[in-house]
């Protein structure tokens, strides 16, 4: 069987990973696994948090080279805080995503990282933006990324419904991440979820033994 192409064929520490973001009724959930690997056989960290807070109610998650992703998010965080001081109001999610897109597009030769930006703002409520490897910016109701995401395309296509409740969306995200972690050997560890609503951001961790089990486990 052919090896499926994955983001994790990059230099140094890479987050061969599974990330997702889902819009539900009143907010977004952004989630990821917690494994960082070097090559395909060494797990360099079992508990890395790939959900980076770039502002109070805007989070980013990263897939691809960890070094590139950290550099980009640091710069984005700085530019975003400067921008929000100038505008004298919390930044729009689209503004955060656009900053990432500018950085990715202008440095597309050197960088190898894709981002999902999700959050809540007063203008449009909950939103999810995807910045792909070359710098394309796209808004979607849900999105998945990382090497483990190929295994759950079928599952999320079948199970996603618009306007889910918080419980349904949490179950959907946890199931999807657990399924991907079960099949992708460079995704694993615990499930990190951040629920972002008008009220703020809440971080939930689902440890390995509390993950949903499926028919053959």
């Amino acid at each position, binding site marked *: *069987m*052919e090896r*499926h192409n994955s983001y994790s064929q990059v230099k140094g520490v890479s987050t061969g990973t599974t990330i997702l973001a889902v819009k539900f009724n009143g907010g977004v959930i952004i989630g990821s696994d917690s494994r960082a690997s070097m090559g395909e056989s060494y797990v360099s960290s079992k508990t890395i948090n790939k959900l980076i807070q770039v502002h109070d109610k805007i989070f980013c998650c990263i897939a691809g080279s960890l070094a590139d992703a950290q550099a980009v998010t640091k710069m984005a965080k700085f530019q975003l805080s400067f921008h929000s001081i100038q505008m004298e109001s919390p930044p729009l999610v689209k503004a955060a995503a656009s900053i990432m897109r500018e950085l990715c597009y202008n440095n597309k030769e050197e960088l190898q990282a894709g981002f999902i930006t999700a959050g809540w703002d007063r203008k449009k409520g909950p939103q999810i933006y995807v910045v792909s490897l070359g710098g394309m910016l796209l808004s*979607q*109701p849900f999105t998945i990324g990382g090497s483990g995401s*190929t*295994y*759950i*395309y*079928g*599952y*999320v*296509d*079948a*199970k*996603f*419904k*618009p306007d889910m409740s918080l419980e349904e969306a949490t179950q959907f995200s946890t*199931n*999807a991440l657990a*399924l*991907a972690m*079960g*099949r992708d050997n460079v995704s694993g560890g615990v499930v990190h979820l951040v629920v972002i609503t008008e009220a703020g951001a809440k971080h939930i961790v689902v440890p390995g033994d509390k993950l949903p089990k*499926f*028919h*053959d486990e």
Partner: protein
Amino acid sequence: MSGEMFPEPGWLSEEVKTGTTIIAVTFDGGVVLGSDSRVSAGETVVNRVMNKLSLLHDKIYCALSGSAADAQTIAEIVNYQLDVHSIEVEDDPLVCSAATLVKNISYKYKEELSAHLIVAGWDRKEGGQVYATLNGLLTRQPFAIGGSGSFYIHGFVDAEYRKKMTKRECQEFVVNALSLAMGRDGSSGGVAYVVTIDQDGAEEKCVLGNELPKFFDQ
């Protein structure tokens, strides 16, 4: 006008592969096999209605994936060997025998061949069975998926498979899985072929593109 040639179409030089989605699932009393129908040579689709579910015996079928030529040849050889075998034992062959014959060829010629066949059927001894024969391995499983499109539905089948489904639920499960994979894999598409095998025989069905289930599409 300069003597510039048009680039040669891919199908003249690319190997013909059944980049594909195949699936076989057991239910209480038989098996259901399913496949898409696309055959590609590089970027060209050379056949959009190929039936990848090949008969090995009355109640034993196999699903083809990988190199089209290799997979078809293995299926033909095993079909012949099974006929001879069933005459010798004066009875219908076991699914395990068919799977073993496929495995023997896959293993012996594993350097030259690149095909993965899923063998499934019904026999009197063990009922419905599914065997995966990837690269010369032989393993019996409650269900098996294969082909390039199968990567996208690993999560779906892991979550949705239940033991002891009825025949109807199994057929729906197979058609849903194929439809999802065809929606995401560029090398899978066309129509869905479904074969249901139980003690009464094999029933072939074709589900056209516009009859396939639709899922949330933004």
